């Protein structure tokens, strides 16, 4: 058993996403005309020692996102915590 944290980092809505726009154009070209927007983000999985409390895991995950995994100038993040 260990804590499993899934982190989702996405570009803020105000930041242009050229990668997402390119993927969208490709999808539209492939025939998926109903796709009106694509935003590409990052998904990161973290494993924490089982001995930590859930509150500690959340606190550390929050710090990790703020300091390294996301750049607050351009990105937003959210994460889920589960014991596996």
């Amino acid at each position, binding site marked *: 058993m260990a804590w499993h944290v899934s982190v989702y980092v996405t*570009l803020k809505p*105000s*930041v*242009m*996403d*050229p*990668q997402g726009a*390119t993927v969208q154009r490709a999808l539209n070209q492939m025939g998926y005309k109903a796709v009106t927007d694509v935003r590409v983000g*990052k998904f990161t999985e973290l494993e924490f020692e089982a001995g930590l409390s859930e509150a500690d895991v959340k606190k550390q995950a929050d710090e990790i996102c703020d300091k*390294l*995994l996301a*750049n607050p*100038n*351009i990105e937003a993040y959210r994460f889920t915590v589960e014991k596996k």
Partner: protein
Amino acid sequence: MRFSVTVFPGSNCDHDCEYVLRDVEKQDVQMIWHKDTDLKNPDCVVVPGGFSYGDYLRTGAIARFSPVMKSVADFAAKGGLVIGICNGFQILCEAGLLPGALIRNKNIKFLCQSTYIRVEQNNTPFTNACKPNQVLKIPIAHGEGNYFIDAAGLKGLKDNNQIVVRYCDANGQLTPESNPNGSLENIAGICNVNRNVFGLMPHPDRSAEDILGSHDGHYLWQSILSSKVGAK
């Protein structure tokens, strides 16, 4: 002057900077490995271009936690001159020494080409040898050079005259076509409020001799050499 060039795993313009400073500008240059914390008493720190840490996660995101960056931040806080070129600019933004961020180029291509930039501010230690609105021909080579800052941040940059160079055409006009990467308001380089930290995407390290297609980078190095500002 004494220059210290930081070297990260994946830096690849560190030797371009060493060459231009030592062989072209005839200055003292020392290379500082990213795990070192002693900057060896420089007058100016150069954070060079390249692909530090393979650009993993985000450009500059991991390099900014290298031990040397704490020393660079301390040096900058004391008024020392710091110039970040290309990946160096990205690292300085990630480190919070400069505001904003560099995101993926608008056309998602890696761009390696000659560009023109216009000197918007020549009252910085990095541009004081340039005339107002002087147009410099300096090349770029990057995939993430699209400068972004939020509306409040942009206002701050303008209020404090921190936008130092902008992409332009050969005549100095700021056109959408002359903006290679989609940067907000054609921004190619900015300084901090105290004007002792400067970051830009174009490479003055690759453009200080005619044989390289342009010697205009020389104006930026010459500015640093003629500036009186230094770490206290």
